[in-house]
């Protein structure tokens, strides 16, 4: 199924990228919220709630706070969503070949995902609201702490496969044992790194609602907020796809994709329900003292074995 080639424009606009990805990402957000609710003994949202949220937000008035750069304020959500949608073109979503693929697209994909976080940080720093500013500082601080270990953890399978092309790593993973078993340390770091990237508990200090309202997005309402949220949902799907492709034996058909990503999501939701929120200094300490070290050990092991 991996050799079905979809015309680039269709891939970009409708399937597997574009509209299908957006719709899918909303369902993934719902699955995450519902699972978390189950773990916390709550009922949780109905299946169309994320879509309803987006529709409502898009129809609302967008309030432009005083003292912001208007162009940046309007453009940042668009750039953020564009970044994560672009990243989707290089990963084998639903088990189809990526629309574009070249050697080194792993780095580009990760960069595009970081673009979203960067936009979040800038959006917070752009407003004069104190909650946004603190949130922006925390977002960017956290970016610098998890980014390197996460990248290193994804490099493990890539080095084993001898290529930095996501599609080829995906094929390599299919012909070998699951990387999760061969590189358990790398899997662990990548999984926790993904939680940091998505700002899930215990790494949700950047949007801690009991301290700084909604963090960097405090001043956003309506359209901008909806676009940022969509971007984050797409990031969730891409992150899960990357993890499944690299560590869970690759993905080669839609069923395979669904099972593996939803399985991962189950683990992510469970982990979210286990922890209290860490302070930002504790997050940075954790990543650089333990995360980065573990990721390096993983890389060394890969270099020695392969």
């Amino acid at each position: 199924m991996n050799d079905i080639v979809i015309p680039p424009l269709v891939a970009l606009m409708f399937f597997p990228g574009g509209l299908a990805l957006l719709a899918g990402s909303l369902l993934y957000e719902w699955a995450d919220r519902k699972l978390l609710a189950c773990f916390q003994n709550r009922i949780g949202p109905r299946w169309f709630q994320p879509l309803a949220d987006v529709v409502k937000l898009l129809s609302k008035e967008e309030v432009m706070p005083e003292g912001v750069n208007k162009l940046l304020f309007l453009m940042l959500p668009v750039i953020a969503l564009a970044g994560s949608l672009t990243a989707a073109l290089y990963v084998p979503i639903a088990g189809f070949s990526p629309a574009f693929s070249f050697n080194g697209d792993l780095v580009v994909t990760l960069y595009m995902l970081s673009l979203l976080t960067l936009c979040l940080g800038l959006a917070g720093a752009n407003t004069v609201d104190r909650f946004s500013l603190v949130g922006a500082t925390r977002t960017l601080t956290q970016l610098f702490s998890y980014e390197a270990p996460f990248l290193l953890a994804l490099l493990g399978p890539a080095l084993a496969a001898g290529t930095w092309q996501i599609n080829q790593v995906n094929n390599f993973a299919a012909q070998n044992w699951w990387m999760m078993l061969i590189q358990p340390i790398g899997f662990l770091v990548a999984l926790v790194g993904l939680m940091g990237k998505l700002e899930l508990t215990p790494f949700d200090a950047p949007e801690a609602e009991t301290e700084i309202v909604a963090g960097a997005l405090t001043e956003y309402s309506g359209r901008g907020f909806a676009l940022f949220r969509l971007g984050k949902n797409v990031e969730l799907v891409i992150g899960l796809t990357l993890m499944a492709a690299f560590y869970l034996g690759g993905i080669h058909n839609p069923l395979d994709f669904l099972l593996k990503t939803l399985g991962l999501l189950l683990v992510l939701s469970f982990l979210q329900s286990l922890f209290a929120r860490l302070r930002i200094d504790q997050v940075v300490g954790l990543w650089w003292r333990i995360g980065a070290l573990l990721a390096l050990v993983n890389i060394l092991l890969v270099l020695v074995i392969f």
Partner: protein
Amino acid sequence: MHGTALALGVEKLAGVTAPPRAQAIRSLIAELERVHSHLLWLGVAAHEGGFDTLFMYSWRDRETVMDLLEGISGNRVNYSANVLGGVKLDISQEQADAIRKGIDFLEERSHFYMKVVTNDETFLARTRDVGTMTKEQAVLFGAVGPTGRASGLDMDIRASAPYAAYTDFPVNVITGTRGDLEARFVVRIKELFETFRLIRELLDKMPAGELTVRVPRKIPAGETISRVEAPRGELFYFLKSNGSDTPDRLKIRTPSLCNWASVMKLAVGHKLADIPMMVAGIDPCFSCNDRLFMIRRKESDPGQIWTWEDLRRYGIGYYQK
């Protein structure tokens, strides 16, 4: 809790004592209220630390005690069990059995919560050595209730000045030593165990007899104070009667007001992320802190300062609107 404090004060002025069964029921309701308050606090404090799972769990279990209280009094929050001279509700055998069953369940759950707050690494990272208050500081800031007791301040009105049924059913005062947020969690959960023990004892040895005693319609002139141990600490009532059937003055000092000073001092030097948890650590009741401030702007403007008469007239006028 407030009803008990007022009723005790009025009874003291009138020179009557409520019958033993009424006193035991007052204590029973107060202890059930303590269970609900501490479980509520546990959830709120966990939520401030971003631990929403604990929040949801403790509030789910709190429903058990809310249902018990509703079964006794018909209300979930304001039980209005007290009347002057006694209580207006009785505990039947079925209700007592239901309470025993509910308490057994909650005790088991509290053991689980104790394990969580003393073992969970991420949670300990947010509570251990945060907002530490020494015993000297606790005395200096006038901390009361579990907030003070977590710093080793051995002070519980139920033990030091027993009221209602606490003379016959003594309470072991729970204290901690560390004085940080973790100690406040531990002290409050240990207090739950003590409360469960006390509830069982109250149910087992509930005195028989009348529920009310006759209280004169007009309360003799005089003034008194009455103190009870609310879940948050010492609740203080000052009551003044002028010999009529309405109080001349009633002044309430809630425990939250006593504990605020500690947060303002201890917060200095802590990180922003710790502040919500430190505020939650004293179990604050914001509505209990409503106070009237009069600011004197100019020496030449005597109208800015109100006399007791002015204040009284303003108060009466406010409610007549």
